[in-house]
């Protein structure tokens, strides 16, 4: 039904895709896997003819017997939404915030002249019901901001399938979502494909997601499909070394046998933090929202402790309190025996002991400073040493970056390199504890494996303690000794990582582990 033949694409003469060929049969789920920059999204955009300016394409992109490369923009407009629907990664920005969800779903029908206003509203309602947003709870008059991320992604799906397209393209549909939500959305997509006899082109970086979903898989690298085949067969053989490399990276276990000492470095004792909830009635003040509710734990010197939870569970609030950025309302946080205070009240010698690495390698640095100045920034806590350049060079070398990187701007580095620089910045003052706030979540699997190795190695060499905050269970499993599971502001389970992952005690932990997509164990034979 969909058939790409030797699709070549270049944008401003920069080659993007090279000889991409594959077929998607009706009712089939086709997984397209690759790391960022591999050209998987561009392939989808070529199908939709939504390519950026200055592109030139050759080859054939057949949709139901017509070559879309030869169609005019007007003909494409008739095709888009009608024959091919698409959903995107970020449900927070894919919807128009000033239109109700009902209107947005109905819009697709109206544009294609498939229904009048009243009918369109009716069909839209039916579609919303179909994607799991029942009328009594989610009337069509809701606005996107009243919905959660998963619910918004459901609205996006309803929009994409409103006209019963033959092909649905899902570009990283669950990457921005929590694991439990991800499982629900993937299940919904699978159901829809079966019921509507659609084809689904599922684009993702996550091998485990395609393993559980796709009938057929293609692996992309640098604009080329290196390997494609029936899913189970592909996983069992892995004939191309890149597929194997990708697979190994995604389940990479760094060697983190660092010695844990008995002295605690961080003690959190009954930490509580509340926020005022928004008023819904004029004379009634709702009870405050407890973001962190009576949380206590200890982190020992040399230990790496994982903190797992879904978005909104309070882990960011807790992190900010540990870093001495926001005050607690109850309880205490002690860093090597001394109390952590918020803001300017925290003594500088204590601040030196804890440093942080954030998730987004693009937002963690002031784009106007050179690397030298960025890595030197923590020296604000001490007097800047005379040989600051040497300190920076040493920190950069520790994380495997050349010392001459310090004279360049941050935008000259890739995501993985930036994350190394972020770690160098955290190391430059020789702290005892590093808080890693989703520090590898935004990275490609192969880069992630390298950063995890680096972290494990640094821990062994420098005797660091890590507080590893993440929503990604595989990462936490790979690098931590002990894990805390957080739900709605409370720690619901704690224990050695192996034990929690193999025999979870709390139902929420079980739910999290069940929801995480996994490659079936018997496929991993090679």
């Amino acid at each position, binding site marked *: 039904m969909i058939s790409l033949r030797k699709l070549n694409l270049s944008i401003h003469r920069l080659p993007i895709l090279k000889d991409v060929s594959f077929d998607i049969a009706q009712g089939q789920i086709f997984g397209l896997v690759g790391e960022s920059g591999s050209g998987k999204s561009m392939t989808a955009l070529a199908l939709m003819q939504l390519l950026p300016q200055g592109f030139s394409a050759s080859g054939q992109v057949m949709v139901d017997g017509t070559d879309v490369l030869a169609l005019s923009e007007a003909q494409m407009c008739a095709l888009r939404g009608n024959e091919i629907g698409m959903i995107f990664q970020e449900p927070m920005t894919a919807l128009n915030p000033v239109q109700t969800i009902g209107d947005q779903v109905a819009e697709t029908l109206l544009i294609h002249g498939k229904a009048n206003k009243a009918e369109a509203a009716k069909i839209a309602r039916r579609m919303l019901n179909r994607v799991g947003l029942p009328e009594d709870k989610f009337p069509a008059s809701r606005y996107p901001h009243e919905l959660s991320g998963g619910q918004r992604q459901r609205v996006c799906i309803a929009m994409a399938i409103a006209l019963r397209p033959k092909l649905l393209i899902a570009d990283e549909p669950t990457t921005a979502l929590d694991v439990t939500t991800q499982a629900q959305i993937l299940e919904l997509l699978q159901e829809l494909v079966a019921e509507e006899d659609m084809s689904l082109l599922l684009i993702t970086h996550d091998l485990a997601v395609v393993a559980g979903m796709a009938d057929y898989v293609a692996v992309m690298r640098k604009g080329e499909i290196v390997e494609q085949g029936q899913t189970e067969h592909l996983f069992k053989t892995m004939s191309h070394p890149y597929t194997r490399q990708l697979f190994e990276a995604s389940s990479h276990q760094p060697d983190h046998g660092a010695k844990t000492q008995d002295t605690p470095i961080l003690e959190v004792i009954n930490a509580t933090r509340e926020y005022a909830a928004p008023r819904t009635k004029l004379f009634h003040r709702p009870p405050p929202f407890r973001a962190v509710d009576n949380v206590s734990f200890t982190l020992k010197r040399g230990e790496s402790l994982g903190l797992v939870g879904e978005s909104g569970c309070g882990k960011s609030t807790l992190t*900010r309190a540990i*870093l*001495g*950025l926001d005050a607690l309302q109850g309880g205490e946080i002690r860093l090597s025996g001394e109390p952590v205070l918020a*803001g*300017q009240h*925290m003594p*500088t010698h204590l*601040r030196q002991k*804890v*440093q*942080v690495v*954030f*998730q*987004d390698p693009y*937002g*963690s*640095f*002031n*784009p*106007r400073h050179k690397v030298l100045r960025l890595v030197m*920034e*923590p020296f*604000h*806590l001490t007097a800047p040493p005379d040989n600051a350049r040497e300190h920076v060079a040493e920190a950069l070398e520790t994380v495997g970056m050349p010392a001459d990187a310090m004279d360049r*701007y941050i*935008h*000259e580095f890739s995501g993985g390199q930036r994350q190394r620089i972020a770690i160098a*910045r955290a190391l430059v003052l020789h702290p005892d504890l590093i808080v890693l706030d989703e520090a590898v979540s935004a990275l490609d699997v192969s880069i992630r494996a390298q950063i995890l190795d680096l972290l494990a190695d640094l821990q062994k060499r420098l005797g660091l303690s890590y507080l590893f905050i993440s929503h990604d269970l595989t990462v936490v499993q790979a690098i931590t000794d002990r894990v805390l599971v957080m739900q709605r502001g409370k720690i619901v389970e704690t224990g050695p990582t192996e034990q929690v992952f193999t025999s979870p005690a709390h139902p929420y932990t079980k739910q999290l582990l069940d929801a995480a997509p996994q490659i079936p164990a018997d496929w991993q034979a090679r």
Partner: protein
Amino acid sequence: MRLPIQLIIGALLTSFFVIAVLVSFVWTPHDVTVLTIADKLQPPSAKYWLGTDHFGRDMFSMLMVGARTSIAVAIVAVGIGMGIGVPLGLMAAANKGSLLDEVIMRGNDLIFAFPSLVIAILITAVFGPSAVNAILAIGIFNIPVFARVSRGAALSIWTLDYILAARTFGKGRVRISAEHILPNIANLLIVQGTIQFSLGILAEAGLSYVGLGAQPPTPSWGRMLADAQTMIYTKPMLAILPGMAIVLMVLGLNLMGDGLRDLLDPRIRRER
């Protein structure tokens, strides 16, 4: 690296006027304070390059000296606006939601609530018409513009991770504002600055036009327009020349602002 084309055109236009101003301090073709009634309303000639006005003053010299007034008024007015407005905006953003934020922003609203040119006329009417009072009046109305622009832009920077990181390094609000916020909103401020600069030139021309700006014998583009309006049908050049000067100056500044923004941002610079 290629320079943006609008920057080149804008810079050429602007530097043309700036050079005219600098030259006017040491040399003008004729003395603008000397009236030569015998040579009044001359067409352009070898002696008077752009002709003369109804008092026989050389138009070319008048435009050169007039640019001095316009640019001086606009520079100082934008300086007042930036110098006071930007720190106020940064302060408001650093203390978002606090009483200080409210006081600053509501104070801005108060100034915004008055039509600027009318208040400028009031100020110059009360304190007497002069270039200095015109500068003050225009400058005061630049303050809320810069305060609002810098607060809005600063708020979005405050949410970024590198601000959080800077806070973990123990940096205070003032330090973060100066080191991280200001450089990252500078491109917006430069663009706004050039727009306000051109608005300042227009406002000065407007005030001079109604006789509340620079006083005779100091030439000013606005008053040249006012003087020319009675003769607009017989000697249209007398109005067209200062009018064109104002248009070209404002256009040049706006183009330069756009070009500078593109040039100063290291991220945009990479993409080109």
